[in-house]
């Protein structure tokens, strides 16, 4: 980036934006397309073809066993995702938020964390939840509408899913500042926090304020942005002129763009970033360059706004296939291993289906629970009146 023009117009030779009120066919098609090239700064250690490559700044020693573990993680969490999506289609879940295509970004980041590190997710972080030891059945209640998430965020070091776009970034900034104020930062035993959000969230004021706060208080916080190219119907170019990782420079901390479909590169970069943070050199922004292979949620229909050839292109960059190819080529895994993982996935899918359909409906008094930490006479009166009303129906609760 040598001239100001290049900063504002990433493609210097591109024609200026048309000003005609009616869009041309080219403009319409351009609006239906996201970027698929990560550019020269993309950190990659395993190509889509399954070839191991090196990077001058980031590398990782990985044992066959560790890589088989990452593969297994990704296959299982993809199965969880597909099962849950199917359960929603069958009417067993109110909604589901697919992670399809983002397995490497999440498993790589999640496996880079230590138990003592803290994580703040958005609502698509099923893979991170998996790495924090949360049983996938615990995600189902959130999407079936029977509960709001049941894990203990302190024990699991995993904050509840955040539905409001980007607002967990501020909470993560505060949490990481606390780690620093408590003296839990400064050496290899230090702690760090990870905050997960998407490309669309980067346009929210909360994210800007979180960047500012984490920077000026040197918070041990890894901002992990999964750029899956689409915020519902809006491509990343609607959020930023610059590649998102370059925003970090303006706030005064490093920004790295990693191939989010490469579990090795994501693991390597995230481990490095967490180590920087635990030694007191945070915050750091990681942009995991990936793609949302399915809809924004099951309420969304992506065929309305993006081209199917883009999906075909990204299928060739599948995060799981490249690991499988590498494992086979290195002779680090045989068919018995792959069959075993498939069998585990089948078993997990069955557990999810069974658990989902057997979840009890919450009782009527749940409406009034936990509105205040302690009793409140007005609300108790409303509750008693309501329960009395409900008990008037034949069969009690309806």
């Amino acid at each position: 980036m040598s001239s100001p023009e290049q900063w504002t117009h990433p493609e210097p030779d591109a024609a200026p934006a048309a000003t005609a009120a009616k869009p041309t066919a080219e403009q319409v098609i351009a609006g239906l397309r996201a970027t698929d090239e990560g550019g020269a700064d993309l950190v990659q250690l395993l190509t889509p073809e399954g070839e191991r490559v090196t990077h001058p700044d980031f590398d990782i020693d990985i044992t066959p066993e560790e890589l088989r573990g990452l593969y297994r993680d990704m296959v299982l969490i993809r199965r969880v995702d597909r099962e849950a999506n199917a359960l929603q289609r069958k009417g067993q879940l109110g909604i589901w938020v697919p992670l399809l295509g983002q397995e490497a970004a999440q498993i790589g980041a999640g496996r880079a964390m230590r138990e003592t590190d803290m994580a703040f997710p958005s609502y698509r972080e099923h893979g991170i939840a998996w790495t924090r030891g949360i049983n996938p059945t615990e995600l189902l209640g959130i999407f079936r509408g029977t509960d709001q998430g049941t894990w203990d965020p302190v024990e699991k070091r995993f904050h509840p899913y955040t539905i409001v776009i980007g607002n967990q970034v501020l909470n993560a900034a505060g949490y990481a500042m606390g780690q620093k104020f408590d003296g839990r930062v400064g050496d290899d035993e230090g702690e760090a926090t990870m905050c997960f959000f998407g490309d669309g969230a980067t346009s929210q004021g909360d994210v800007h304020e979180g960047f500012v706060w984490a920077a000026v208080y040197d918070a041990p916080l890894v901002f992990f942005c999964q750029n899956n190219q689409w915020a519902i119907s809006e491509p990343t170019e609607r959020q930023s002129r610059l590649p998102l990782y370059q925003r970090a420079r303006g706030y005064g901390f490093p920004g790295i763009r990693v191939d989010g479909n490469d579990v090795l590169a994501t693991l390597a970069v995230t481990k490095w970033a967490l180590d920087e943070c635990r030694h007191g050199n945070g915050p750091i922004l990681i942009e995991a360059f990936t793609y949302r292979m399915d809809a924004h949620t099951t309420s969304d229909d992506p065929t309305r706004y993006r081209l199917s050839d883009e999906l075909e292109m990204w299928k060739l960059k599948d995060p799981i296939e490249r690991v499988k190819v590498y494992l086979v080529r290195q002779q680090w895994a045989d068919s018995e291993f792959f069959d075993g993982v498939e069998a585990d996935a089948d078993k997990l899918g069955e557990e999810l289906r069974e658990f989902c359909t057997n979840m009890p409906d919450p009782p009527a008094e749940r409406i009034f629970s936990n509105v205040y930490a302690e009793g409140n006479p007005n609300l108790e009166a409303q509750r008693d009146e309501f329960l009395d009303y409900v008990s008037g129906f034949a069969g009690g609760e309806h």
Partner: protein
Amino acid sequence: MKTTYREALREAIRDAMNRDDRVFLMGEDVGSYGGCYAVSLGLLEEFGPERIRDTPLSESAFVGAGIGAALNGMRPIVEVMTVNFSLLALDQILNNAATLLHMSGGQFPVPVVIRMTTGAGRQLAAQHSHSLEGWYAHIPGLRVLAPATLEDARGMLWPALCDPDPVLIFEHNALYNLSGELADDAGPVDLTRAAVRRPGTDVTLITYGGSLAKTLTAADELAADGIDAEVIDLRTLRPLDADTFLESVRRTHRAVVVDEGWRSGSLSAEIAARIAEEALYELDAPVRRVCSAEVPIPYAKHLEEAALPQPASIAAAAREVVRGG
């Protein structure tokens, strides 16, 4: 002509865009996606990207930009996906849109229209099911509209754009699929008056927005019991047309207010207070209110339904004021 609430809103936008080239639409996913509730479907193809503008996910920015465009002579329609997200733009709405005319000594009117979805009932849980139009109706300087019928969905936008003051339009999410007949020549409507949607003599049921249909259903149930209920649709939540409901209460001598907002400090409280101030001695029974339970809106379907006003609870409250419980 057979149409839906959604199509009537779209036709209103199309009509306004054709009437005045200062009008444009701006918000998240309003372009190729056609709006999260499909209100603007097809308008990008018709009017182009300069007038149907997809924005970054920045509520404060696009509401603020709409205010700026209005200050500079444009007539923006800003779509905030839902009222829940409007909280991020509250500063712009309250501290800029609602105050600039006054603070500039009358120099800067802010003719912006901000549309948003409101209400519960779609199992979107505690952070996406708010009914906060009552909050906005608290703010001097704003006009707050709640179209509950096809006529109002079709007819409120143009007069809102003609209004020199900022106007908020709340579209209840349960209404988008409402279908029915709309006159071919349906057009702008009066924003100043509430409407009597069902005349009656025994009790006045006062409501608006997504609760209107439920209240009319309750009125039918009451009719079967021999209670003749009058149903009033407020239509404009600020400034309130109190005359219409006060006149009704003076005839029926009984009132029930139905409001999906939370009871304490609500629009329903304001209406009950107006009745107490202006017509207390006309009442034969205390005013009753049917509101949402004062809890974060529940997630499970059966609990969500139980927490909201429903025809059965509305009819029960009306029977109580008519017959003394």
